[in-house]
C-alpha cells in the first residue's frame, strides 16, 4: 500500500492500533500510517455498526474516529486524519464488541428499516420511566468513544493576542495574504490546522511550491508576524474576536511543558479567511464501504505521505479535479480501471484514461476490510469493475463556517453548486478556494436511496431524507433534527450539501430556496478542559488568601471556602471534631474571650465634604447626625426596595467615614458604590476607596474583651458603637466597638502589612486571659443565637426592611436608594415572609428545611440558619415564615425530605440571647 514517494528509509515510529504494534514514518497522520500498514477497517458506524474506513485526509473525516491515548489523557472520537503519529501512540477503535472485525452490534444493520429517521419519536411513547429503561441499552448499542474516567493530567492555557490582520488557512491564498500584510508592516497572525504550511500546495505542487511557502513564512516571521500551526480557528465572535485552539501536543501525547493545548483569544483589525473547501462525497448504495475515499484525499495520501490506498482504482467525478488524482495514482503505479464522469461529454483535454461520460457509481461490493468491485451506470447501461479503491469527487463545499459565525450572508454559486460568502457584517474577507470553488456538473443521484449515505457519521441515508419528507418535514431545520443530519461531531462537513440537494429536489426548488442550517462554533470539537484553561484544576478560581493566612495555617485549622476566600472554620484541639471545636470556641466567647480574623469584610473609606450625602444615598439608615468617633448599624437597598447588604458606618474624622459590609457582597457593593459615585452623583465632592484588602481585621469578643483590649492599648476601650485610634504592638490601629456575637466586642483594623505583630500580641493577651481563637463555625453559632442577620441567609434578596423588622431604622428623611420602591403596596401586604426565630420542641432543626403546618402541606417558609444554644443546649434556628411576626408561639414542622430529617419547632422572636443588649453595656 505504499507509493514511490514514500521514503524507504528513515526513522520508524512505533504505534499501536487495537493493541497491535505497527510502524509509521515521521510526519504521518494516523490515517496515513494505517493505510500504509494495509489497514482498511478503522471504525464502526454510529447506529448500524457498519464497517468504515478512511474517507478523507482532513478534519472533516466522518468515519475514522478512534480513541487516542490512555488513562486520563485518552481522547475519544479523534479523527485518525487529524492526529500525527508519535512514538508510543496508542489508538483504539470505538463502538464495537468484542472487536472491530467481529462486531456483534452489526446485527443492528439488519434492523435498519426499524431504525430509520424519527426512530426515537415513533418508538418511545409513554412514561419517562420506560425511557430510563431503554436508554441503558441504546447507549450501549450506539455511540462514539467513551470519555476517560481518570482526571486529565495535562494543563490548558489561554492566551490573548492582538493583530492587524489574522489570516486563517495557510494554503497559497492565505500565505500570500499574510505575506502581503507583513510586507506592509502589519501585525500578522497566520494560523493553519495542519502541522505544515501549504495546504493544497502539498497535494498539488504548482508554480508556488513548498519552497515558496517556507520563504514566505520566514518573511512573515522576520517582520514580527506569528505563524501558528496545529491551530484551528474554532469560533468567530463579535468585534472580530476569533478563538483559536492550538495543539501543543498530539492527542494522548505527553506534552513537553505540561500544557497540552492553548486557547487563543485573538482580536484582529481584519480577518482574512483562506479556509479552502471540502470535497463532497457522492450518494449511492454502499458508498460508505472501506475503500471508498474522496478523490483529493487519495491524492494527498499519494503525494504527501507516499501511501497509495489502492492498486486498481475507479474514479467517480463530476468535475475536472479528480483527473489530477488519476495522474497522481498513475505516477504511484496504480491502475486506473475507469473514470466515471457524470458530465455528458468529455471536458477539456484527453487524459489517456478509460473514461466514461454520463456515468455514475451505482454500488460497491467488498468485505468488512476492503473494496472488491464497483458497479456503475454508463449512459443508462450497468457496468462493473473489479477495484480495491473508489475515489469520488462530488464537487466542493467552501468552508464558510467562520464567515457565517461572524454574521455574514451566503450567496449561491450555481456553477460550483455551492454557497459562497456574501456580505460581511464584520471586518472579514474570504479569499481563495472558499470564495471561488471549482465548477461542477450538477446531477441529482439516480440511484436507490437505501444505504446511500449522506451523513456518514450519523448513518443518515437518502432514504431517511425521503422518509422525513414523506412524513411532512419541510423545513431544513426540522429535517436536521428529525434525521440527526449534520448533528454528529463532524457537524455535517461532508454531508449537509448532499442532503440539502435532496430536500430541494423533493421540494421542487433550487437548493438556495430550500434553506440552510446555522453554522455555530466550534468548527471542530474542542476539549472541555481548554475552555476552563488553568481553572480546570482548581474549580475555576484562585483561592483568596487572608493577610494572616500563614499565621492561621500554622495552627492547622479546618478551612472554609467563603466566596473565593479561605477562612478558618475552627481550630480543633487534638481529638476534637468540628462541632466540638466550634462549640468550645463559642463557649469561650460567651464566658471569657475569643478572637477571630474578620479581614474579609468589605471596607470602603469615604472622604470629602459630600461623604454624608453619598452615604445617605447608599444606606437606608440615617448617617448625617453621626458624631465623630461614633458608628451605627446600617443596611442597603436595591432600587426595588429589597435589602441587599448590611454593615456598619463609622465617622472616623470630620469628613471621613469607614463603611463596612458583608464579605460575600464585597464586589457587588464596590460596583454599587462606583455606580452611585460616578453615575448617579458625579457632582458630589467625595472620594470612595475600596480598602477591603488594605485593612486586616481582628475581632475580640466576650465578657473579658474590654479588659483584654485595655491591656493591649493601655487605654480605656471605646464604648459600644464608638471608635478610636490606638496602638498595639507599636502599630497604629483603628478600634471599632462593634459586635456580631452578642458579647461586648471590638474590631481592630490595621494596615495588612503590619497585621502579624498585632495578631500575635492580641493572641497572647486573649489566651493569657483564658480565651481562644474562634472560627466561622463558632461565629455562626454566636450570631444565630443573638439573631444577627447574614447576607445570603436571612438577607436573600427577597426581604424588605419590614420583613426583617428593620423598618424602624429607616431614614425618615428618605432620599436613599430603594425608598421609592419600598412604597409599593405589595411590599407591605399580608402573607409576606418575615424573619422569625425557631426553637425545637422535638428533634434537631435541619438547616434549609421547609416550614409546614403538617406533613403534606405546602411550605410556608424555610429555615435560613440553625444552631444550638451555646451554653444550655437545644436546637434553635432563624427562618422566613409567611406572616411570621403574627405567629409567635405557633408550632410547625421543619422538614427536609431530601435528607429525611424533620423536627417540630415553635415560632419565637429571632433573638435567643440578651435581647435587651445588656451585655454590650459597660
Amino acid at each position, binding site marked *: 500500500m505504499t507509493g514511490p514517494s514514500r521514503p524507504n528509509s528513515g526513522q520508524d515510529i512505533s504505534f499501536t492500533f487495537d493493541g497491535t504494534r505497527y510502524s509509521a514514518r515521521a510526519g504521518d497522520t494516523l490515517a496515513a500510517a494505517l493505510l500504509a500498514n494495509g489497514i482498511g477497517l478503522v471504525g464502526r458506524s454510529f447506529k448500524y455498526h457498519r464497517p468504515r474506513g478512511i474517507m478523507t485526509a482532513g478534519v472533516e473525516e466522518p468515519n475514522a474516529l478512534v480513541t487516542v491515548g490512555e488513562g486520563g489523557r485518552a481522547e475519544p472520537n479523534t479523527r485518525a486524519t487529524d492526529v500525527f503519529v508519535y512514538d508510543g501512540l496508542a489508538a483504539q477503535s470505538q463502538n464495537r464488541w468484542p472487536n472491530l472485525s467481529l462486531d456483534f452490534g452489526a446485527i443492528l444493520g439488519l434492523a435498519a428499516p426499524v431504525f430509520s429517521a424519527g426512530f426515537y419519536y415513533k418508538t418511545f411513547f409513554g412514561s419517562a420511566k420506560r425511557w430510563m429503561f431503554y436508554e441503558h441499552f441504546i447507549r450501549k448499542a450506539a455511540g462514539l468513544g467513551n470519555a476517560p474516567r481518570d482526571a486529565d493530567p495535562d*494543563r490548558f*492555557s*489561554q*492566551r*490573548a*493576542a*492582538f493583530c492587524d490582520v489574522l489570516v486563517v488557512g495557510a494554503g497559497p491564498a492565505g500565505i500570500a495574504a499574510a505575506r502581503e500584510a507583513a510586507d506592509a508592516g502589519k501585525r500578522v497572525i497566520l494560523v493553519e490546522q495542519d502541522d505544515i504550511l501549504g495546504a493544497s500546495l502539498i497535494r498539488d505542487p504548482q508554480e508556488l511550491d513548498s519552497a515558496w511557502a517556507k520563504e514566505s513564512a520566514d518573511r512573515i*516571521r522576520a517582520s514580527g508576524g*506569528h*505563524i501558528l*500551526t496545529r491551530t484551528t480557528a474554532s469560533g468567530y465572535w463579535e468585534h472580530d474576536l476569533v478563538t483559536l485552539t492550538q495543539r*501543543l501536543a498530539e492527542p494522548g501525547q505527553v*506534552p513537553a*511543558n*505540561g*500544557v497540552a493545548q*492553548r486557547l487563543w*483569544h485573538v*482580536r484582529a483589525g481584519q480577518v482574512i479567511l483562506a479556509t479552502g473547501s471540502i470535497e463532497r462525497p457522492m450518494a449511492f448504495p454502499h458508498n460508505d464501504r472501506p475503500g471508498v475515499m474522496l478523490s483529493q484525499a487519495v491524492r494527498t495520501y499519494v503525494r504527501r505521505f507516499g501511501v497509495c490506498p489502492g492498486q486498481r482504482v475507479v474514479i467517480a467525478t463530476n468535475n475536472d479535479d479528480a483527473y489530477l488524482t488519476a495522474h497522481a495514482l498513475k505516477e504511484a503505479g496504480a491502475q486506473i480501471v475507469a473514470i466515471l464522469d457524470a458530465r455528458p461529454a468529455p471536458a477539456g483535454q484527453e487524459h489517456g484514461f478509460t473514461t466514461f461520460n454520463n456515468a455514475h457509481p451505482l454500488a460497491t461490493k467488498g468485505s468488512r476490510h476492503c473494496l472488491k468491485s464497483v458497479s456503475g451506470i454508463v449512459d443508462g447501461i450497468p457496468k462493473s469493475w473489479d477495484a480495491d479503491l473508489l475515489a469520488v469527487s462530488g464537487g466542493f463545499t467552501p468552508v464558510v463556517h467562520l464567515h457565517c459565525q461572524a454574521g455574514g450572508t451566503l450567496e449561491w454559486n450555481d456553477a460550483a453548486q455551492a454557497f459562497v460568502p456574501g456580505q460581511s457584517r464584520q471586518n472579514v474577507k474570504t479569499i481563495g478556494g472558499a470564495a471561488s470553488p471549482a465548477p461542477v456538473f450538477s446531477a441529482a443521484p439516480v440511484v436507490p436511496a437505501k444505504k446511500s449515505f449522506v451523513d456518514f457519521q450519523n448513518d443518515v441515508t437518502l432514504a431517511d431524507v425521503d422518509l422525513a419528507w414523506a412524513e411532512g418535514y419541510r423545513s431544513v431545520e426540522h429535517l436536521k433534527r428529525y434525521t440527526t443530519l449534520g448533528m454528529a461531531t463532524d457537524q455535517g462537513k461532508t454531508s449537509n450539501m448532499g442532503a440539502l440537494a435532496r430536500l430541494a429536489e423533493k421540494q421542487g426548488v433550487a437548493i438556495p430556496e430550500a434553506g440552510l442550517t446555522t453554522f455555530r462554533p466550534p468548527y471542530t470539537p474542542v476539549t472541555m478542559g481548554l475552555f476552563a*484553561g*488553568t*481553572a480546570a484544576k482548581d474549580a475555576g*478560581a*484562585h*483561592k*483568596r*488568601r*487572608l*493577610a494572616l493566612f500563614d499565621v492561621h495555617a500554622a495552627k492547622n485549622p479546618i478551612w472554609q471556602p467563603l466566596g*473565593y*476566600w479561605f477562612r478558618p472554620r475552627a481550630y480543633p484541639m487534638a481529638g476534637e471534631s468540628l462541632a466540638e471545636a466550634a462549640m468550645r470556641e463559642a463557649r469561650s466567647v460567651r464566658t471569657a474571650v475569643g478572637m477571630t480574623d474578620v479581614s474579609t469584610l468589605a471596607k470602603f*473609606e469615604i*472622604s*470629602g*465634604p*459630600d461623604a454624608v450625602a453619598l452615604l445617605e444615598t447608599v444606606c437606608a439608615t440615617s448617617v448625617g447626625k453621626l458624631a465623630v468617633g461614633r458608628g451605627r448599624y446600617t443596611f442597603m437597598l436595591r432600587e426595588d426596595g429589597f435589602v441587599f447588604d448590611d454593615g456598619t458606618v463609622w465617622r472616623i474624622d470630620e469628613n*471621613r467615614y469607614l463603611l463596612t459590609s458583608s464579605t460575600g457582597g464585597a464586589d457587588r457593593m464596590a460596583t454599587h458604590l462606583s455606580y452611585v459615585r460616578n453615575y448617579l452623583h458625579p457632582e*458630589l*465632592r*467625595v*472620594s470612595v*476607596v475600596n*480598602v*477591603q*484588602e*488594605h*485593612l*486586616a481585621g481582628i475581632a475580640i469578643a466576650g465578657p473579658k474583651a474590654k479588659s483584654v483590649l485595655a491591656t493591649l492599648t493601655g487605654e480605656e476601650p471605646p464604648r459600644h458603637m464608638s471608635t478610636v485610634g490606638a496602638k498595639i504592638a507599636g502599630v497604629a490601629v483603628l478600634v471599632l466597638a462593634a459586635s456580631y456575637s452578642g458579647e461586648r466586642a471590638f474590631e481592630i483594623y*490595621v*494596615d*495588612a*502589612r*503590619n*497585621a502579624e505583630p498585632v495578631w500575635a500580641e492580641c493572641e497572647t493577651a486573649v489566651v493569657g486571659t483564658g480565651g481562644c481563637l474562634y472560627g466561622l463555625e463558632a461565629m455562626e453559632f454566636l450570631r444565630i443565637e443573638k439573631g444577627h442577620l447574614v447576607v445570603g441567609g436571612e438577607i436573600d434578596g427577597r426581604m424588605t426592611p419590614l420583613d426583617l423588622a428593620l423598618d424602624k431604622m429607616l431614614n425618615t428623611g428618605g432620599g436613599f436608594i430603594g425608598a421609592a420602591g419600598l412604597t409599593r403596596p405589595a411590599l407591605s401586604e399580608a402573607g409576606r415572609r418575615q424573619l422569625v426565630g425557631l426553637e425545637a420542641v422535638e428533634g434537631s432543626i435541619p438547616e434549609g428545611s421547609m416550614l409546614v403546618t403538617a406533613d403534606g402541606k405546602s411550605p410556608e417558609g424555610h429555615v435560613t440558619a440553625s444552631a444550638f444554644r451555646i451554653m444550655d443546649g437545644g436546637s434553635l434556628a432563624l427562618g422566613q415564615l409567611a406572616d411570621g411576626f403574627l405567629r409567635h408561639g405557633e408550632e410547625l414542622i421543619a422538614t427536609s425530605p431530601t435528607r429525611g430529617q424533620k423536627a417540630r419547632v415553635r415560632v419565637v422572636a429571632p433573638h435567643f440571647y440578651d435581647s435587651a443588649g445588656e451585655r454590650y453595656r459597660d
Partner: protein
Amino acid sequence: MLHPISMTAQGNAIVTDVTVSTLPSAPLWAFEIWNNPDAVATRFAAAAGFALPEMGTSGGSDALRLIRYEPTVWLVEGDASALPSILDNDGALTAIGGGVTRVLMSGRGWRRLLMEGGVFDAESPAFAVGSSAATIIDHVNIRLLVLSEDACLAYVPLSYAQGILHFWQEAAKALD
C-alpha cells in the same frame, strides 16, 4: 520578601526569558480629585516638578510616582507627604498599600507572559515605557506599569498574589 521565578522556555518562534519577583511591600495611596482639577494640577506640577499624568500613563520617578488608572484617581508610590496640602479641599489621599503586592517582571519576555490569561494587548508597541493599564489577568484585577523595555511592574491584590504568582510560574514553563 523575594520570590524569584526565573525561567527560559523555548518554542518554535522565539525564546522568551522572564523573571518574576515579589518586591518588598511599600506604602501606596489613592489620590482622588473631586473638585477644581485644573487648579490641583497646577499646584501639583509646581510642587512635584512634573505634570499629573494623563490616563493610561505614569509620571515621576522612584521618589514619587503617580499612575492614573481612573478618570479622577491616581495611584501614588513614594513620598506622598506633600500631597494632602496640594489637594487641599479638592480631593483626598487614602492609604491602600496594605492590600497591594508589587510584582516585578523583568526580561524581554514579560509582554508575552502578560498575554497568558489576559485580555489586554501588552505586546502593542503603544504600550511603551511609562504606560500604565488596569486589566484582568486570569480573573484577577491587576494594574501594570511599564518601567522599561525589559521590566514591568504589576500591582496585584494581596489576597490573589500567591495565586497569580503560581499562575505566572506555570504559564512561563510553556511560553514561546
